[in-house]
């Protein structure tokens, strides 16, 4: 019979070793992805440009309607909620500041990232996972084609470009939503609202938002690909990994958001 101490250490070991292995796998994937995306093009192994374009269309262009709708609604909601407090102190015009700053600094990037996690992150996991289950990934390796370069890098390029682009779009539509509500229900003069927004927004607000969006793009791609490559069995596991990829990428997006927001708060 093993002693209590042995049992305790056994328990810690059984829990810790798989976690270490996961960290190792994830680190290796990140390393490979960045190698094939940023270093190997200088060594003559070009990025798959056409595949990247088609990923951009799938991840970016096709998300435009949903990003637009959600951003418009969130802009309106934000204007309404802030008006609820601001009208008591007679400072309704500051709705413009609140909407402008919170959308560009925070809500634009994070809403876009959450939508893209749900749409593209899960699609990445499902695509790579079902390819893994059907031996297609093995087939790529056996043809001497690196699956990270072939599958992950085009997705990474697509999200690194499209997430900031969608965020700019989301910023504009969100501010427009606040504007629509303010000039109608709140009876603020359109020109005043416009001027107030311009005065409130700094270039750095928009830039920090875009930097976050870029980082979120990287996080979503890596999480989706990681979960996809983890698939060993069949269709059931593909479904499980797809769900896991959405949960994990939304979680990590928020963790990174906290990190960047803190960083920007103190250093910009």
């Amino acid at each position, binding site marked *: 019979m093993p002693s209590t101490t042995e049992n305790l250490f056994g328990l810690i070991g059984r829990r810790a070793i798989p976690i270490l292995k996961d960290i190792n796998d994830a680190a290796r994937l990140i390393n490979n992805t960045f190698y094939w995306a940023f270093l190997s093009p200088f060594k003559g192994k070009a990025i798959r440009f056409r595949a990247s374009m088609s990923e951009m269309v799938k991840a970016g262009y096709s998300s435009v309607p949903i990003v637009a709708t959600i951003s418009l609604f969130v802009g309106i909601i934000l204007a309404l909620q802030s008006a609820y407090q601001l009208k008591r102190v007679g400072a309704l015009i500051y709705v413009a500041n609140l909407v402008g700053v919170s959308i560009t600094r925070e809500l634009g990037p994070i809403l876009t990232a959450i939508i893209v996690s749900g749409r593209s992150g899960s699609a990445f996991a499902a695509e790579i996972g079902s*390819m893994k289950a*059907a*031996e*297609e990934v*093995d*087939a790529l*390796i056996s*043809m*001497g*084609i690196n699956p990270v370069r072939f599958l992950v890098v085009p997705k990474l390029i697509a999200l690194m470009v499209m997430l900031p682009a969608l965020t700019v779009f989301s910023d504009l539509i969100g501010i427009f939503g606040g504007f629509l509500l303010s000039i109608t229900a709140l009876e603020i003069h359109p020109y005043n609202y416009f001027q107030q927004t311009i005065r409130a927004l700094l270039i750095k607000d928009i830039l920090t938002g875009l930097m976050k969006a870029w980082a979120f793009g990287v996080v979503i791609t890596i999480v989706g690909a990681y979960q996809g490559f983890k698939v060993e069995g069949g269709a059931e596991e593909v479904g499980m990994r797809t769900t896991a990829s959405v949960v994990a990428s939304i979680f990590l997006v928020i963790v990174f958001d906290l990190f960047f927001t803190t960083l920007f708060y103190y250093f910009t």
Partner: protein
Amino acid sequence: MEKAIEVIGLVTHYGDREILKNISLSIPSGKTTVILGGSGCGKSTLLKHLIGLLKPTRGKILINGKDITVMKDEELDEVRKRMGVLFQGAALLNSMTVSENVALPIREHTRLKESTIQIMVRMKLDLVGLSGFDNFYPSQLSGGMKKRAGLARAMALDPELIFFDEPSAGLDPVTAAGLDELILKLRDVFKMTIVVVTHELPSVFMIADYVIMLDMGDVIFSGTLDELRASDNPRIRMFLERRPEKETYSPEDYFRIIAGD
């Protein structure tokens, strides 16, 4: 006998379970070698090691004299360019048409002109009897056609060495025989070294020049077809005569199994 592949003292594990127990074998070049064995004997694992998908716990795998188990990825890719693999489910990329699938290794590894690539693709498809199916997607093909397309892709770069993982699995006898005929044609016309992993006996007797038989992670036979037929090893006889394996338990063992201890 010139050796295309030589395996020396290969030991592999899945987790704690030992799959291949210190096996050594050699595969002659320019011939069709069949790796034979029942389910779970480790033959698919062996194949995955031969094409460098898995790294062994111990042992060497020499392909044309070079040990692939210690190679870096770039060197291994060079070896892989000279081998083709037909996977069990063909493993065509579903997002691409048949001709794009066949063109994939050519596009990735050469800088040929698009028109040249198209001609090569049509030649390969014609070889496997799939002319005219260039623009079909894998989901629109039957099981046998998928395998043929997978074979065309495996042959795209004119490999010296070609592996088949259970080529007749899931095919009707007529289609399976067609595939066997294709394998014979490849050996006779292109002088390729062919390695087939299978458990289908009719197919073995049709295509094999040389047979390696695995059983429970060990090589129990290697030699020609005639030697296989003449063998009096009970495990081989059981396999060849399709006799079921009788699992005999002592009363104590049986009790231990049902008691779950």
